[in-house]
């Protein structure tokens, strides 16, 4: 009986979250000369996404965030692991049931390449509806409704993507994901390609839609501020593995994993007096996923690395209530086992405290900015933020032009 089977046998396993990932592993074959190599993109990732909340996944470029997103929605088959969605197990590869396809949608990173340049906005949004066999008369209504819900005038349905701005296109992408009335939306770097000011509008739109549609988000980003603003709980990924996961509030005030601590210390501070404080800078590049380090994958860059770290991979265990962390600093409880562990623990705790203080100090300022950004649209109706002035129907007319 494997650990996974034991997990499934737990009585509460069924009503944990809308989406449950268990031990998801995804590798890609690769070649260097005649050698056949394996890229370990996602390694043994387990994650629970509670219904109606936002789960953030954060990590550097190349840590497997996007691969994980694609495995979740079924664009990539997983090598092994379990995916449970809405209480039912999904096949990790191959075709999914129609109901699941409808209930799980994705918003892509690049608003420019995510829309078919040859199709009107209306066609793009209608495509999934048509594929799923929604009646023609109903398609029109639903396209118009989601367009208005994402804050675009219904006339945009007749426009082509090149006539829209980046922010408007991302609204269209969100509208397309909404059209099938999903339960879960995977947002893969959904705002990373946008200007800061547009980011705030899109994030607030997403929050409004979550309320009105009762959506669950899996929010993937490399931007720590954005993840903090959006997420209820956060998982930190490093080189294909989850190294820490807990509530967003706890993660940003009491980070336990050295990697998380370094990440948080790297957030640029708004207040110049705060700039030099808060921990160690990360040295070196992320190791290649072709040949990940033995034991703990972070040990090559970890300021607290010990002998054990090269030998034993630290399991993801609960270090505090609801706070999972994969680090020997927090999982080895035998003080005699490794010399100097206590000292290192103390150093790590001190670093965490420094970061926490910096985050709190910075947080006040940060909150003020975010609140301000949120307040810009004024008393907007849910789903109708003020990026586009709705009073003016879109001026670009496809029948005029060059």
């Amino acid at each position: 009986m494997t650990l996974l089977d034991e997990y499934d046998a737990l009585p509460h396993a069924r009503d944990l979250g809308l989406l449950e990932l268990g031990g998801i592993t995804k590798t890609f074959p690769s070649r260097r000369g005649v050698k056949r190599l394996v890229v370990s993109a996602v390694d043994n990732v387990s994650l629970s996404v509670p219904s109606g909340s936002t789960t953030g996944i954060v990590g550097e470029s190349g840590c497997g965030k996007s691969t994980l997103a694609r495995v979740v929605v079924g664009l990539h088959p997983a090598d092994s692991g379990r995916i449970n969605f809405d209480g039912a197990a999904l096949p990790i590869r191959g075709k999914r049931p129609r109901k699941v396809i409808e209930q799980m949608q994705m918003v892509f990173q690049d608003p420019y390449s995510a829309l078919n340049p040859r199709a009107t906005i209306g066609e793009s949004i209608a495509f999934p509806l048509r594929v799923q066999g929604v009646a023609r008369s109903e398609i029109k209504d639903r396209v118009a409704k989601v367009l208005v819900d994402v804050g675009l005038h219904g006339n945009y349905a007749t426009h082509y993507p090149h006539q829209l701005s980046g922010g408007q296109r991302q609204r269209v992408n969100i509208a397309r994901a909404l059209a099938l009335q999903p339960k879960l939306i995977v947002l893969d770097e959904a705002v990373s390609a946008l200007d800061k000011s547009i980011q705030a509008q899109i994030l607030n739109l997403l929050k409004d839609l979550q309320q009105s549609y009762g959506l669950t988000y899996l929010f993937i980003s490399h931007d720590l501020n954005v993840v903090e603003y959006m997420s209820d709980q956060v998982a930190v990924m490093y080189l294909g593995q989850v190294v820490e996961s807990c509530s967003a509030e706890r993660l940003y005030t009491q980070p336990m994993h050295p990697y998380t601590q370094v990440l948080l210390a790297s957030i640029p501070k708004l207040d110049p007096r705060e700039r030099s404080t808060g921990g160690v800078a990360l040295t070196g590049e992320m190791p290649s996923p072709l040949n990940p380090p033995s034991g703990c994958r972070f040990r090559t860059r970890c300021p607290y690395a010990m002998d054990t770290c090269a030998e034993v991979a630290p399991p993801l265990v609960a270090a505090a209530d609801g706070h999972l962390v994969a680090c020997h600093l927090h999982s080895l409880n035998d003080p005699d086992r490794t010399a100097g562990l206590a000292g290192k623990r103390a150093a790590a705790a001190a670093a965490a405290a420094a970061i926490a203080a910096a985050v709190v100090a910075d947080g006040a300022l940060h909150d003020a900015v975010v609140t301000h950004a949120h307040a810009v649209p004024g008393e907007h109706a849910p789903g109708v933020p003020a990026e586009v002035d709705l009073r003016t129907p879109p001026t670009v007319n496809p029948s005029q032009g060059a």
Partner: protein
Amino acid sequence: MTTITTATPLGNDLPLLTVEDHRAAWAAQDVGVDAKSFWAETTRRFLRNRMGVFALAVLLLLVAAAVFAPLLTSYDPLVGNAQDRLKGVFSDGHIFGTDEQGRDMFARILYGGRLSLLAAFVPTVVATVVGTLIGTWAGFVRGVVGNGLMRAMDMLYAFPAILLAIAVGASLGPGLKNTIIAVSIVFIPPVARVAESAARTVSMQEYMEAARLSGANRWTLLRTQLLPNVLNQIIVYSSGLVGVSMIIAASLSFLGLGSQPPAPEWGYMLNAMRGSIYVAPLVVVIPGIFIFVVSVAFNMASDALRESMDSRSGG
């Protein structure tokens, strides 16, 4: 007496606009989600392109002239009068002059158009359709199937075009039908290559992944998402093949594998009369002029088509 009321423009009173109003405003336009609108839009934009319409008109005129040749001339294209050999242009009764056997050139051009236009268009169209299917499918599914298809294409591609055409023509026997088959086979690999590379690029775009998420099968994805995005590149390439096709067909005729004498065919006529170029130069170049006009008109028409398939070109 009727009261004329001006409709209030949308949005004078934004706060009063409801979702239903937006929906109504949009429904009033009654376009957008119609799947056929891509081709309807393309036609509409094409008709606004003067050069394209002109080129298309020229092509249609030539086709009509070839089809209705018996109504336009009383001469027999196959029977000549030995006394009237190599008369110049605009000579008595022979507007385009006569060839080296005294046959009326105007009649031969008209009747020859039937063969030449067929030899120019049919291989191009056949190769475009077949090559597009093979290439886009290979670029879309990739893997073993895609590689297998493309390596098969590469094998054909390795031979020089004219040599391959000669080989096919020789094994099938002489005749215009076999020339058309041979030229079609010659043109499929390059079209498939262009289609494959275009399809490969497009299938990596995020909108293809988004479309896959909708649960659509591969054929639907290929037809509705991929094809409109690769067609213009293929059309640009294929349109250039019309002229080449005529020339290959002419070369095969010259080598005795294409249309057989005395059947008039523009390329064959050009070749057969090249010895007489110092006697009646204007007469000799007439078939060449027609080959040129067809090529240019076809290129212009396909350029216009490509532009009108591009939604960004406005219009």
